[in-house]
């Protein structure tokens, strides 16, 4: 095997993607400080420290970026093998949070891990992505008479979604649904099933909005924020005022007032502060960056030679994009309110670290864009060529004679 061939197999990671991610993380830290200092300086439980949230966000960002780079270096095969463990861990934590979760701001979606609080629903996104990539990353699983092959992964990811719904975290559930939809679509699910899923998803949203009192209140506030100013409409009104006063060019960095009114100014409504201070220009730049992120993710998915990599990139891409879309839509009162952080920007360790981990996976996929993950090939062989009981035919570019080629061991770290 020549060195030229080796070089062709392992690319450098997608530097544009990495650049955008780092830019978003840095501006996120700045924005978190900008939007949180009135709250943290004012309240004694944050030690009256204006930097309270910024310091923590810097720590999370540091840890997250390191983990992202680390993940981008390790072979995808490792992730593939770990995916079942991650799935089980997510399910255990999601069940645990239902039993002994910590309640913050009325929603029980936190688990105490030593000194840290952790949101299992954030892990759930990652778990679904890696699990579905593994489970659906085998060609031909949608072939006739083999419905079990895709019904089982659908069942597991459906279970996770239901556990998230049980926390009444409909925003995350919607994100999970979008991820599942994108990954099933990419894996080649039949169009009629996809249409059915979309219809069912929309129906579920309509039913929830009509029958669940908690959701109905939010829908009412969405329709008439001023009428519910003292309750559910309060944050919406102030968020809209932030967008409005921002105008074209904004009131200037640090000059915004939304953060003095909205309690969640540095988490779910951080976009309002950005829009107020940097105006339409700033808010459109952020939309552009997230669009670019989505495009890059899907381009990597297209280019990836392995279905596994494509599924990972598309899953992460759709998760990040859906979250960004939902968050922006909530902040602009385009949809009823639901608590979703703006990925990479909003304050919150669980969200930032898991998002960066996911993007680390995508970076890894971009490095291994030429690599066809082995297990997948083996499966494809077994499907197509009914390998059992027959002699193994070496696959392209591999030495013959061995059952496993361990191609990953030869992969050199190139950056």
């Amino acid at each position, binding site marked *: 095997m020549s060195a030229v061939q080796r070089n062709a197999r392992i690319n450098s990671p997608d530097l544009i993607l990495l650049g955008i991610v780092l830019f978003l993380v840095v501006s996120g830290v700045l924005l978190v400080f900008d939007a949180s200092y*009135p709250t943290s300086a004012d309240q004694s439980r944050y030690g009256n420290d204006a930097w309270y949230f910024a310091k923590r966000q810097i720590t999370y960002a540091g840890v997250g970026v390191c983990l992202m780079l680390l993940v981008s270096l390790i072979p995808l095969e490792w992730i593939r093998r770990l995916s079942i463990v991650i799935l089980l861990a997510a399910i255990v934590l999601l069940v645990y949070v239902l039993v002994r979760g910590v309640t913050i701001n009325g929603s029980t979606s936190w688990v105490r891990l030593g000194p840290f609080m952790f949101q299992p629903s954030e892990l759930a996104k990652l778990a679904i992505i890696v699990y579905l990539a593994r489970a659906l990353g085998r060609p031909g699983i949608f072939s006739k008479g083999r419905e079990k092959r895709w019904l089982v992964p659908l069942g597991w990811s459906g279970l996770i979604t239901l556990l998230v719904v049980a926390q009444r975290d409909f925003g995350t559930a919607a994100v999970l649904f979008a991820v599942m939809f994108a990954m099933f679509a990419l894996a080649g699910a039949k169009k009629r099933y996809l249409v059915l899923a979309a219809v069912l998803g929309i129906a579920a949203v309509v039913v929830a909005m009509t029958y669940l009192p908690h959701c109905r209140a939010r829908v009412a506030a969405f329709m008439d924020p001023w009428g519910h100013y003292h309750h559910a409409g309060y944050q919406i009104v102030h968020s809209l005022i932030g967008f409005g006063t921002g105008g074209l060019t904004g009131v200037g960095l640090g000059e915004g*007032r939304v953060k003095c009114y909205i309690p969640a100014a540095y988490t779910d409504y951080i976009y309002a502060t950005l829009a107020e201070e940097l105006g339409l220009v700033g808010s459109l730049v952020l939309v552009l960056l997230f669009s670019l992120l*989505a495009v890059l993710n899907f381009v990597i998915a297209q280019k990836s030679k392995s279905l596994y990599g494509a599924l990972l990139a598309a899953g992460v891409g*759709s998760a990040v994009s859906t979250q960004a*879309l939902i968050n922006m839509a909530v902040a602009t009162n385009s949809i009823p309110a639901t608590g979703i952080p703006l990925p990479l920007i909003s304050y919150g360790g669980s969200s930032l670290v898991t998002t960066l981990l996911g993007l680390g996976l995508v970076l890894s996929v971009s490095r291994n864009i030429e690599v066809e993950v082995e297990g997948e090939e083996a499966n494809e062989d077994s499907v197509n060529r009914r390998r059992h009981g027959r002699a193994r035919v070496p696959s392209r570019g591999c030495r013959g004679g061995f059952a496993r080629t361990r191609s990953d061991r030869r992969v050199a770290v190139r950056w």
Partner: protein
Amino acid sequence: MGSRTREVVKKRSAWLMLGFLCLFAAISGRLVFIQLCRADEYAKWAEKIRWAKIRTLTARGSIYDSNGHPLAVSIRTCSIFANTREVQNVSLTAHRLSALIGGDPKNYRKKISEGRGIVWLAKKIDPRLGDQVKRGWLVEKDGRKRYERIPGIGVWFHRKRVYPAGPAAAQVLGFTNINGRPLAGIEWKFNDILANQDGEILAEVDARGRIIPEAERRVLIEPRDGKDLFLTIDLNVQHIAERALTRVVKKFQPESACVVVMDPRTGEILALANFPFFDPNSALKFPQSTWVNHAVASLYEPGSTLKAITVAAGLNEGISPSSVLARCTGREKIGKNNLRCSLHQPFLHGHGSVDMQKIIKYSCNIGAAHLALRLGSEKLRHYEEAFGLLEKPKSGFSLEAVGYLPKADRWGTVGLANIGFGQGIAVTPLHMASVYATIANGGVRVPPTIVRGTGSHGKMMARLKKPKPQRVISRLAAAKLTEMLIQCVEGGTGKNAKIEGYLIAGKTGSAQVADSGGRGYLPNAFVASFIGFAPADNPRFTIAVVVNRPHGSHFGATVAAPAFREIAQKLLWYYHIPPQPSNGGSVHEKKRGSKSLA
């Protein structure tokens, strides 16, 4: 990956990408709509919510007595109200309020549940309690202790006017309403000085209504504290006067009564007491008639006390004190009118031949009438005017009355004779006190004043401009008149005012009350008065006691003179004036010579 799978991945990736891009485009459209098309509308909302008028509380000026004791001060206080539309749990709110500020929770519950809109739950309470209510209720949530606002309950901080001396000098001070607007007295008259101006700032506020420190703010109204006012009233003298007044009131149940104590040398009013009393801290609980400052605002016919002016005019015009003016037989017909003297032992058949000394000493009406006739109406009126009876005293009180006296050419003989002994003329007790202060001051009139100066933070910074003293009668005439007034106390009608060891000068008065409906006098209504000063050789204070419609007796000698005596005695002690061996009135002239006047 097989080529078919690859095809599917590429195609569906493109579709998904397109889908997400469409959604991002939709968000962008929404952003343009909100941030450009509707920006003005949202800016208006922002103006409405984010800007608030913040009031800065200032204090109305305090009023102090001459020793710096506070008579009226403004303290910070607060009132608690409920907005019934925002109260969420009535009984819980009532319970918490009662725990925070005391009071019966049932009462609060009733007020909140029966009221509509803003309901006042507690008024003018300790501002520290208001701070507590504003801070909220301590709750433990998620293991953290924090204060939770009580929904629908608000606190209004304001100022409350307090009169620490209670009813003392109440009619002088006046009072203010709950909003700090003055309604009477010094408070009203000197409102320009005392009035404060609460500041108003238009500022950007945060969600809790607190000003955002670095934000822009506009001062709408500059805050200004009121200036302090320093009165000439001495609270100790005031108490002495009021104590004596209370005793008179108890004994004779008059309709009203007043005491004026003045320093004749400076014209400063040391005490001014009016009965009926009221407490300015709760003025509205008292009938309006108690608010009247009778000593300044109510006219009465002074009667015999006015003879001092007639005699002063005579003396100043050069009539000898011992020249006989008339023969008094107890009654005499002058013009169409019958004049009468009230006769006592040893003058049961008239005062005999009357000179000016006797007019004062025994209060002979006929003698005074003849003196008036001898002086003529023009001259007499001139002296009435010179003593300041026909103008407002301009002492600093609100609603000062002007003395009533017809024009000189319309008096006629009867009128002139009557005015000679104090009938047909109406003045206020303050006018009369000023007249005797002028005599005590050697004939130089120093107009009465009630306000000494202005200042701030309890210190006097500026004196108020004083009116110029004016000589009314010669020093000699004043000395002679003083001697006559001493004789009146020593052996005449004013015996009840005599204090052993001191020289007291004074004159009684027992005047009839004119019928307000028309001509003539009311049959059983009198004003008993006694006006004098002490010590006569070096006067330190002038006291006027005027008792309107006493029951039991109507003579100034029996009603007013004992009160004068009580006040004078205590003031002599108060000013540490040592007694002197009594040796008639001659001391007066001797001392007078050494005093510089005018």
